[in-house]
């Protein structure tokens, strides 16, 4: 499974990677630390990833715009996107849904809880 992580905070990125390794045994995921770099990488990929984890508050190109570009892109339009955010405001949730995200999870402070919610979200959106 190829996972692409868009996340600007290295500590948060590492937490997501650990969670992915623990839940799915995944290693060496692709990632980008800002929206511009993420788009650069995503739009030039030979093969689309199986899933995109998208931090909502990304610098340069915001998660919302990035999602819009992904959904408008020929090869990426159908790739499942999970929005991952610290935000506890419902407006992000709504915007993510409107923008075509497949799921939305909160970066919970408790690591186990976060790992569980990421795992369930991925299982929900990935084709079986």
């Amino acid at each position, binding site marked *: 499974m190829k996972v692409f992580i868009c996340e600007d905070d290295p500590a*948060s990125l590492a*937490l997501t990677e650990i969670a992915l390794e623990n839940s799915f045994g995944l290693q060496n995921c692709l990632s980008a630390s800002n929206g511009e770099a993420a788009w650069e990488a995503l739009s030039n990929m030979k093969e689309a990833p199986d899933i995109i984890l998208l931090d909502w508050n990304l610098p340069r190109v*915001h998660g919302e715009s990035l999602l819009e570009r992904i959904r408008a892109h020929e090869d990426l339009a159908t790739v499942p996107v999970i929005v991952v955010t610290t*935000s*506890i405001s419902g407006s992000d949730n709504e915007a993510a849904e409107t923008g075509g995200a497949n799921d939305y999870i909160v970066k*919970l402070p408790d*690591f186990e809880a976060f790992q569980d*919610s990421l795992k369930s979200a991925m299982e929900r959106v990935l084709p079986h």
Partner: protein
Amino acid sequence: MINARGKIILANKQTRNLFGYDHEDLLGQPVEVLIPSALRDGHEAHRANYFLNPKQREMGADVELTAVHQDGHEFPVEISLSPLVTEAGTFATASIRDATARKQAQEQVSRLLEAAPDAMIVVNQQGSIALVNAQTERLFLYTREELIGHSVEVLVPERFRDQHKTHRRNYFVAPKVREMGAGRELSGLRQDGSEFPIEISLSPLQTETELLTIATVRDVSERKITEEKLRQYARSLEISNRELEQFAYVASHDLQAPLRNVVSYSQLLKRELPSLSDTAQQYFQYIETNATHMRDLIHDLLQFSRVNSARAAHKYIDINKAVQASLALLETEIKHHKAEVLVGDLPHIEADAGQLVQLFQNLIGNAIKFKRPGINPRVEIGSQTSASDSHVAIYVQDNGIGMDTEYQEKVFQIFTRLHSVEEYAGTGIGLAICKKIVENHSGDIRVEGGPDSGCRFVLTLSKVAPKNEIPSLQAEESPAIPTSANRDTDSEQSRDDNNPQDGPDNSHA
């Protein structure tokens, strides 16, 4: 009664008393004996004219008439003349009334007019100015000679003149005391062409001869300036409040990411270590409890910043339902502490439902949290008689540890805690949120009861939604404080969004 040659042929008792003569002293005398010597020649000429064309009339209708007493003192009189044509010739009957009292009254009125702090303008039915006081001269920069006899519209800016004439005519149809143009801005026009804001009140004045209107005009320039300053001040306060709220929201929002990293990595670190000493266990425990406390603080601060009047959506609601909704949210605590909650019949009011749920959740939650050791919490919620017709009063009574009277005011200030975190968890924000919520409903909250009797919180809430004093601000978005990549506009009202623990529920699984 006099004959055509001006000789007195009859004088009644009143005449004799008025002038101080005996009957014999007056009969046959020229009527001019009753007139001050300086005026006698003129009177003779008038009298001769009268007999040329005698008819019933007021004498000297617009001239002050003066008579002279037998002892020489002069006094004002009012006279009316009636001709009496007989075969023996034409006679004139003059009815003479002492006008001293009336004249004094008139002078008093005029002194009153001059002493009035406002400009006073007396206008007749034709719209001509009959009388003005000194304040009118000062205010409009005219002398009274320049005004009397002229149309009152000279004092009205040209663009309002036609309208004013119509209003004036309508007023005379049904004259009564009233404020003019209440709710409208009125302007006066000075002689130099400048305009100024005024307030006018009108009162009808029925004299013996005609209906007049007294217009009292007040220059409100100063007041307008003060009002404008107050408006600006209120506006800047409102903006600064909104900015503070925005700041609190953004700050608490941005605190969450680093907190999450601290918590998560301390958990992972703990797992990495093969074995932990008791001390190390204790340290990890400290990190965890402090992180939890900080998360609660952030959560409550976010709530505090969100509970503001601008976001309150007032609807006609049943307070019973708000209380029931808060009880549903407190289900775990109620079960855990075996709490008994009794809810009496509560009224319907115009309120923000979400805020009321939060209010009762905080108050009932507190009542359960601050329970007496070993005693099951018992909370009673009911309606009580309000001090005013416009508000309802509701109490929340518990059987808990109560509160010293000295804290009863302080406890509503943000971050006020009466106990250590070890004794009772909490952030000291809950009651500050309650206070903010009741204030959003033009109400008040206080706590009663000493340390032995439990707490009784009494809150008042306005029955109707408060009118917004600065409506223009409602529509405007306050400038957002830019931080990191945050683009939250916090447009949501949903309470579930406020709770970080509700996170998983936010996913639309």
